[in-house]
């Protein structure tokens, strides 16, 4: 059973085709990258997975459960870290996490909430109002909210946009640990060096279509633009994936 199965998903907003027959299988335990320029359809695909919008056609399953027909079980399998830094200004960090846990039907979940907060360095901010937190701290709470119901599949929609280097590194350490512990991670990012170092497999989207899908290593090997010298993966590989990304995007119709 795939962690996420996306089959022929189409979505239009008026005349704009956001998703044009996207199909993807993301296996359990993968660290999967979803890349593409702005407007490629990444966020539409993620919101469709999360049930935040309804595709015009096609099927999306999370851990074998249809996100529309079997939404209760499907949503319990999925934790989503939204792109925007959103929060409820009425509540403290602990209240935010306790309510979020409650929405998923987990009313006695304090041990796990404490553990998530400890791992995200939020324990000393547990009773602070969300308004008083810095941007980085708010981002950590967003991650904690996505984990509060222990989902096997975690989707991060540009989680490091506007985040300082220190938080970015500690966030990736934490996410990598979750992946090693068995969580499936789906990541969208514009920082290609992050995708290259973290993702085992990458899909590239352009104008709502998948234009490349392969392991990171194969993408780098197959699509290296002429004139770019081969490099060892991980040795300043950022330029490589960036060059590959630009080449694939320019070649894709």
């Amino acid at each position, binding site marked *: 059973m795939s962690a996420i199965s996306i089959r022929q998903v189409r979505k239009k907003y008026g005349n704009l085709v956001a998703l044009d027959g996207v199909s993807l299988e993301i296996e359990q335990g993968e660290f999967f990258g979803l890349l593409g320029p702005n407007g490629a359809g990444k966020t539409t695909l993620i919101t469709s997975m999360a049930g935040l919008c*309804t595709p015009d056609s096609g099927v999306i399953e999370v851990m074998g459960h249809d996100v529309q027909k079997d939404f209760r079980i499907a*949503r319990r399998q999925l934790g989503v870290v939204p792109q925007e830094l*959103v929060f409820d200004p009425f509540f403290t960090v602990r209240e935010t996490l306790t309510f979020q846990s409650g*929405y998923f039907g987990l009313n006695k979940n304090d041990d796990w909430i404490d553990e998530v907060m400890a791992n995200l360095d939020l324990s000393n901010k547990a009773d602070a109002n969300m308004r008083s937190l810095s941007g980085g701290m708010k981002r950590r709470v967003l991650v904690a909210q996505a984990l509060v119901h222990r989902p096997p599949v975690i989707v991060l929609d540009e989680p490091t946009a506007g985040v300082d280097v220190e938080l970015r590194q500690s966030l990736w350490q934490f996410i990598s640990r979750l992946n090693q512990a068995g969580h499936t991670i789906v990541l969208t990012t514009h920082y290609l060096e992050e995708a290259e170092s973290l993702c085992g497999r990458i899909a590239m989207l352009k104008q709502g279509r998948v234009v490349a899908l392969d392991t990171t290593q194969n993408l780098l090997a197959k699509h290296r633009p002429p004139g770019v010298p081969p490099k060892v993966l991980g040795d300043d590989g950022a330029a490589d994936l960036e060059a590959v990304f630009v080449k694939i995007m320019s070649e894709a119709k």
Partner: protein
Amino acid sequence: MSEIQPLIAGKKMPEAKIQSGFPALFRKEVKRFYKVAFQTVAAPILTAVLYLLIFGHILANSPKIYGYEYAAFLIPGLVMMSILQNAFANTSSSLIQSKITGNLVFVLLAPLSHIEFFAAYVGAAMIRGLCVGFGVFMVTIWFAKIPFAAPIWIFVFALLGSSLLGAMGLVAGIWADKFDQLAASQNFIIMPATMLSGVFYSIHSLPEFWLKVSHFNPFFYMIDGFRYGFFGQSDVSPFHSLAVIFFCLLIVTRVALGMLKKGYKIRN
């Protein structure tokens, strides 16, 4: 994140422990207005008391209504008006704030059905409306002697009225894209409809035309039925009022549930 604690990643919560998300969403909505109770409960009580002091004083010598002084007639109307306006305000303001700030996404990501969503928001609106109504009653009761002819009707109309306005607030909160759209619905529909529903007067004192118009205002039936619980007298039968309000509640609930199920303006 330097000292990393042991993480039980991937450990699933036993299915038996998983319950409905409704209680958490209901508690959140109640706590939201409770945290700013000075604004959401105390302020409307003060407004109602000011209405009583001003109108009660100006119209102190007006003819008795149902055999009681004007202040006694006015108090149940003010209580019900407060219940209705605050029930509407709770759902509508909570939803529009969550939509505009974007934090509604946390509720939408959860495995809550449209019925649980509706019940939690409307339930919390009823609690706020009833809290404010009770507060208004407890403060204003000292200004006039009020009978309790049929208390059951007081509870029935308070519950139905608050649920109807809570559901209407939900519809308005989903529909409105901006704060001024919501303010327009509040100021140009809810406020006039409540003020012209017989809170301050018996509709039998109106000219024939406006008396007929009043019968098309559902707020009139809520106020009139609620007042029947105190005086045992009303402009129309409480059963008639009950039927009208129940019908309105069915329609508004149907509309609200339809919007939520479709995800109208919240899931796209």
